[in-house]
């Protein structure tokens, strides 16, 4: 049942020009940045050779690329998630799901999996670029995988937040704006946390990119992974509650 909903969601995305446009824009933009990064690396190569324990191509190309990709995902995730539930509610198609013999949990998980499948396609396409370098340079696959995992976890958090906010309104634009605001806030919340005071370090801990940076360095800390998973579970839980609530209030 979950997969039926997820499959329709994914199909729906690919039937709209939005998904294709986003894929093209992201790929084009990141390809440009990738080229610049590779060019920089070539220029630096001579000096790096002289250093002991010098950063490799994974650190100087893949990691910065993923960092930019995270930003791009932040910008476009709201566009992908905004319609998930708000549009269904507005056009009345939600009634089909609500009157079918399926629970709210299955509906939310189906929607989430659908959009995650799309984001995975996008991330896979981004990952292809540094992978190409394997043909001519030594890649640190451990670091690369950690970075990719971070990117997926990050995208998963974005999508979960967007799904919840999409459940709150009937207007996709409103859902997108709210999602964007929330994600941006969580992105920059650690600006308040540069000092070592307790409140400051709490903010730093809450920030989304903080946990991503560690993964980019190849540091796999289960606390970082747990942070993202908790964030996703919380958002999805809220979305399920909201959908149950809709039957009560609406």
């Amino acid at each position, binding site marked *: 049942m979950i997969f039926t909903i997820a499959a329709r969601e994914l199909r729906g995305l690919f039937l709209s020009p939005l998904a294709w446009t986003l894929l093209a824009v992201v790929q084009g933009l990141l390809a440009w940045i990738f080229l610049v990064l590779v060019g920089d690396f070539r220029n630096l190569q001579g000096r790096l050779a002289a250093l002991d324990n010098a950063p490799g191509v994974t650190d100087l190309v893949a990691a910065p690329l993923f960092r930019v990709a995270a930003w791009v995902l932040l910008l476009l995730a709201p566009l992908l998630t905004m319609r998930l539930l708000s549009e269904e509610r507005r056009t009345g198609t939600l009634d089909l799901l609500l009157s079918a013999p399926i629970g709210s949990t299955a509906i939310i998980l189906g929607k989430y999996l659908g959009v995650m499948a799309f984001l995975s396609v996008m991330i896979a396409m981004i990952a292809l670029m540094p992978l190409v370098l394997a043909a001519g340079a030594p890649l640190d696959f451990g670091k690369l995988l950690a970075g990719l995992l971070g990117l997926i976890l990050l995208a998963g958090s974005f999508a979960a937040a967007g799904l919840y906010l999409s459940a709150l309104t009937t207007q996709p634009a409103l859902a997108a704006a709210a999602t964007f605001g929330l994600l941006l806030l969580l992105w920059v919340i650690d600006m308040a946390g540069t000092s070592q005071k307790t409140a400051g370090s709490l903010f730093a801990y809450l920030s989304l990119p903080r946990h991503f940076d560690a993964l980019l360095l190849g540091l796999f800390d289960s606390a970082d992974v747990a942070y993202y998973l908790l964030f996703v579970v919380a958002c999805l839980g809220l979305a399920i509650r909201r959908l149950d609530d809709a039957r*009560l209030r609406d």
Partner: protein
Amino acid sequence: MKGEILVQVERLTRSYGDIRAVDEINFTLRTGEVLGFLGLNGAGKSTTMRMLAGVLAPDAGRITIHGVDLLDQPRQAKQAIGYLPEQPPLYREMTVDEQLHYSARLHGLDRAACRQALLRVKDCCGLVDVGRRLIGNLSKGYRQRVGLAQALLHDPPVLVLDEPTVGLDPIQLREMRELIRRLGRDHGVILSTHLLPEVQAACTHVQIMQAGRLVYAGALADLEQRRRSTHLRVGLNAPPPVASLAQLPGVVQVEDLGHGRFRLHHASGVAPHQAVLERACADGWDLWEMTPEHAGLEQIFVDLTLGEAAA
């Protein structure tokens, strides 16, 4: 099985804020019945149907569908319902086949069963030729039919149709009514409408809702009885006192409408037109108008609500 109880609704209540949209209604639906829900806009028809379909939770009351409590075991109960909302829940970017396939899968049909169900409902609803067309490009009438086909996919014993004939042209209207009558033979159908002819054409039973309450429930034949002309409007240039009109044989009550017009209430089937005519000629009332008034839907509402208040 004919006469088997399919839907049992007890003291169903639902409010939106301070407004009581549905107020303690009770009714029963059996196999072989087509129950027409009549009511003006905002009478609570759609709210009731949404609750039956499990889309909206009631504030209080019980709904039992095919022996299963809708609130306790929603999944099982929903499997027994086919629901067509006011706005058919269709994805514009999908084709008819895709939409129906998706809906069938949501209702737990496996692939083989899906194919068969699709053929069956497309044939039943006249959609064989449009299977590959995009729903967004279909006319309102076709979308309505896709919506109905979707409700029939899992072959539910109960059909809940919210204004199923809105937007259909006269031919489609006739086909839809015929289809509903046919479905009514071995299903239980609940349909809502605000058109009386609709009920007459397709239903066996009728319920009238007014401001969230059920003001009338019964077989269609009984309503027909009520709807028979029971009023005669007369216009007189030289009217007698009201009392002498009231004494005419068959007249139950006289309403003075002003300007020499009167509405004579009489028992159905015994119109006093002959008596009025004779007296008018004999006493020189100067009769210039005499019209039998058929009770419109509105009149029935007024009668019923007045009757409620009096009773």
